[in-house]
Each structure stands twice: as C-alpha cells, then as structure tokens.
C-alpha cells in the first residue's frame, strides 16, 4: 500500500527497474595532472569514508567499554567490557525480540513478494481495458503519505481484535505494494512472450503461466523484493509503536526504544547497555547487507528517470 513513512532512505524509488550498468567512465589519466587528480579523488573518498564509517566504529567501541568510559571517545576500549553484552542478553528478552523481528520480517517479505508478483503478472501479461489507468493509480498510491491511512487502519485492526498482536505488522502486505508491483512488472515484461504462448498451447492455465514459468524465471527480481521488504520490516519503528503493547511481542526497534527509555535517558543511565543493545540491533542488518548487498543496492539504484 502506501510507502512506509519511517524509512527515510528516500523510500522506495518510484520509477524504473532497469538494472544498473557500470559506468563507462574514468577517462584515462593523462600524465601528471591525471595522477594528481586521482590522488585528490582518493583522499576525498578517504575523508568521506571516515565520516560515514567512524560513527559505527565509535558505537562498537563504546559498547565494549565499562560504564565510566563509554563517552571518552577513545577508539580502543581499555579494559574491554564484554559483560555489557552478557547483561543485555540476561536482563532483556533480546533473543525473543530478535526472533519476533525474524518472524515478522519473513511474514512481511513472503506476503509482499507473492502478492506483488501476482498483481505485477496481471499487469505484465494481460491486455484489458483500463489497464494503463489502473497502473497509473498503482504508481500514484506510492506518493500517498502513510499518515493519511494510519488511524483508520489501526481502527480496522482494533475492530478485528488484532490491534495488540503482530498481525498488523505484516498482514497489509498480503495485498501487494506499489513499488514492488512496479519492479516485478518491469521484470515480467522482459520475459519472452513465446514461452507463455507455447505453454498455453500445451494446455497450461493462466495461473500455471505465473507459477510455473514467470516466477521461476524471475528469481533475481523476487530476491530484490524479498530482501528490500525484509529490511523495511526489520527497521520499522512506527508500526510496532502503534500496535505492540506486550513486551514479549516487541520487534528489535521497539525493543531498542524501550531499552533507551529504561537504561538511557529515561532511567538508570547505563549507557553501556544501551550501546551493546544498539550493536545487536544493527548487526543483523549488516550481515544481511554483507550477504545480499548486491540486491539491496540494485533495488535502490533503479533510477527515477523514467516516468
């Protein structure tokens, strides 16, 4: 449905889903000037790299320091306080929260991938009257601020008796999501028509075309969809704040917020615990990025240049 207001990362790009080709650039260095330029570029890259990475290094370092040293801004903790992590795992239901995040993220990602693929195939394969207008509506719905639907959506789940469960965190995904519909439609349109025609001749039904031909041929696009949505679900704070009351149902972002309130500025000022908890929330996303960064960056890179 509407885009997720909490994902500031420029949210999901609107337009095309063409894969990004590497830039045919870097003019060949011409003598000494080219050399100097290259060094300048590398130095600038280095400075920015430090700006982007050092906060995370600081975080990991702070999470390993004893309480009185957390804010000393030294790179290497002295002594190392691995106990901070033990405390997080002992005093907080952190493993439960991680499990909740995994379950909700999987449900959200599977639901949105299958439903969006279904709808995208409808748009890609069939010709019918009003198709373009309807697809324009899909694209238009992407611009809708989720704040405009937040309250009635809550009341719907409340009416269904599910307002304090994890169901609202993923069940909306069963109806497809505009950006992924767009992305998958682009992919399906690139599949050769003859394969589908041949399958029709062999007696395949329309669902068979989708399930046995289109889906197996679209694994990269499905992977992008799945991973982007898993990530979006993992980092979401707003929906868990709205819906989850019971601490045992918390996802990691909601859990981290309550750790901050309990151990940080709201309470005992045990910042080393907060920092260790923070690392444990960030780490799974970095692992995902290490494994599937290619897909994540491809999904984001789809540029906004084609209407």
């Amino acid at each position, binding site marked *: 449905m509407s885009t997720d207001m909490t994902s500031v990362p420029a949210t999901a790009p609107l337009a095309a889903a063409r894969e990004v080709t590497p830039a045919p650039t870097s003019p060949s260095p011409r003598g000494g000037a080219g050399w100097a330029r290259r060094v300048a570029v590398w130095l600038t890259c280095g400075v920015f790299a430090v700006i982007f990475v050092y906060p995370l290094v600081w975080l990991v370092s702070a999470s390993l320091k004893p309480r009185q040293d957390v804010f000393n801004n030294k790179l290497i903790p002295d002594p190392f306080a691995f106990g901070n992590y033990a405390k997080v795992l002992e005093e907080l239901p952190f493993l439960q929260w991680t499990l909740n995040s995994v379950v909700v993220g999987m449900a959200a990602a599977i639901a949105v991938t299958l439903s969006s693929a279904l709808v995208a195939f409808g748009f890609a394969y069939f010709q019918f009257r009003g198709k373009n207008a309807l697809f324009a509506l899909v694209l238009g719905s992407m611009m809708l601020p989720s704040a405009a639907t937040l309250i009635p959506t809550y009341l719907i789940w409340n009416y269904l008796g599910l307002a304090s469960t994890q169901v609202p965190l993923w069940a909306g995904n069963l109806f497809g999501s505009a950006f992924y519909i767009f992305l998958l439609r682009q992919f399906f349109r690139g599949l050769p028509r003859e394969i589908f025609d041949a399958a029709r001749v062999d007696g395949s039904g329309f669902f068979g075309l989708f399930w046995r031909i289109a889906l197996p041929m679209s694994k990269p696009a499905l992977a992008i969809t799945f991973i982007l949505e898993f990530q979006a679900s993992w980092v979401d704070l707003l929906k868990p704040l709205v819906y989850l009351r019971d601490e045992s149902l918390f996802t990691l972002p909601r859990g981290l917020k309550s750790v901050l309130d309990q151990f940080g500025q709201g309470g005992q000022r045990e910042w080393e615990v907060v920092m260790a908890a923070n690392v444990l929330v960030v780490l799974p*996303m970095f692992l995902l990025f290490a494994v599937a960064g290619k897909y994540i960056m491809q999904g984001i890179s789809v540029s906004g240049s084609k209407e």
Partner: protein
Amino acid sequence: MRPETRAAYGFLSPWVIGFLGLTLGPVIATFVMSFSDYDVLSSTQWVGAENYRDALDDPHAHAALKNTFFYTALYVPLSIGIALGLALLLQSAGRLKGVFRTVIYLPVVTPPVATGVLFLQLLNGQTGLINNVLGTFALPTPNWTTDPMWIKPGIVIMSLWSVGSVTLILFAALAEVPAHLREAALVDGAGAWRRFYHITLPMISPAIFFSVVVNTIASLQLFSEVYTMYFGATTTPPPEEALFYVVYLFEQAFRDFEMGYAAALSWLLFLIIMAITAVQLVVSRRLVHYRSD
C-alpha cells in the same frame, strides 16, 4: 467476459481489494473522522470543523509544522547537493568504487531507531564525538541536543549521515548518461564545468527531481529518529524544537487517543504534501529534461 479478462482481474484482485480496503477507504475514513471527537472507548461525537479550528489555534501544531518545514527546507537541498557531489566522486573513484559505495551505504542499512540512539550520543554537547572533532579544529561546539537553536540542525546532520540512498540513485542516473555526448562536447572544446552543466545535469535532472520529490515527502513525515531521541518515556520533557509533525500526530492519536483531532492533523498533512508535490511538478516542467527515447 473473455477468460483472459476474467483471469486478469483475478491477478489484480489482491491489489484492488487492498487499495479499496487499506488505502482509499482509510483516506476517506480519515476525512470523515476529522469532523468527529473519537477516543476509541466512548462513542463518536460529531463536532463539525472544530478539529480544524483547534489545529489553527494549537501552538503545538504550529510548532510542529514550523519545525517540520524548517527541517525539510534545510535537509532536502543539502542532501541532494551532497549526494550529487558524492555520486560524482563515486564515478571517478576507479578501483575504490565498490568499497566506497558500500561505505556510503552502511548508514542507510542502519535502522533509524539505532541511528537515533547513536546520534543522541554523538551530538551530545559535552561528551559527543562531533563536538570533540569540532573542538579540535577550534570550531564552535553548540549543545546540539539541548540548545533550542541547534536541535534541528543537529537532526539535519544525523539525517545527512544516511545520504547514501540518494547518492546511489544519482550515481545510477550518472551511469546512464551516454558517453558519446560527453565525448562530443569534449571534442568541441567544452571544459569540465560546461560539460557538467550543459550535458550531465540535464541528463540526470529527472533523477534529481525524483529524489527531491521523494525526499520532501519523507522529510515531512520524519518520525523514527526524532521520536527515539526525544520522545517516549524520557525523564525530561521533550524540547519543543524536536516536535515534528508526525510525532505530534502520533502522540495525539496513540498516546492521548484524540483520534478525531489526529485525523484532522493527518488530513492537513495529506493536503500539505499534495500541494507541495503539485508545486514541485509545475516547477519541474521548466527545469527537468526528459529524454524522448
């Protein structure tokens, strides 16, 4: 009905049902609710336009709107400018391209709530790393998290840390600028700046425009980082400068259960976003160059 058409409707039905039930229906319901007094527990009172009149008189709503506009006006141009610079840098990074791209993108992968917790410390006036660095260069070291004048700039700094997604979008657009155009200009003797201004910039203007629109919409709805840093169960009352529109809306709806009033606030935000996007679209007609292929 042809079997194809029937099948097509079948495939589209999840989205149509969801659109009606979870998008269009709720948007209309938000509008209807905005004329009511509703707290979930007791029954609905119809109050006419009172919620809208209240919003016009509500100093918190004013502050929230002002903060949100200030932030958006500061963050969007800065983020686009920095992202463009980084994208150009990335393009000429040669062998370092892969590593540098990953590095720029790491903050985007960091969950917003984690970014909020982290920057609450980095921005701290006394012990924070940012002032530590600024102090080393004898630059001013404001109290980013407590001084009313510096709270919003501090939030902008935090948001700029995650500029990697815009960078990647612009980088992808740069990669699609046909090399032959630049080479032709080079042959014609155009300097680097002219090549950028007359060829590269028009070619990537759709991507820039897209980023402006999407970033504006996202900025007007900034929530997670700010809520994490300043709201929730804190011992100190949240500073008024950190009250952003969606944060206020959230607190009205889900802390105070003033659902009718919050619905009016939602609907106002919806109108504001539509209006701003419409203005951006009109302005873009003159500035954005779409390729005809």
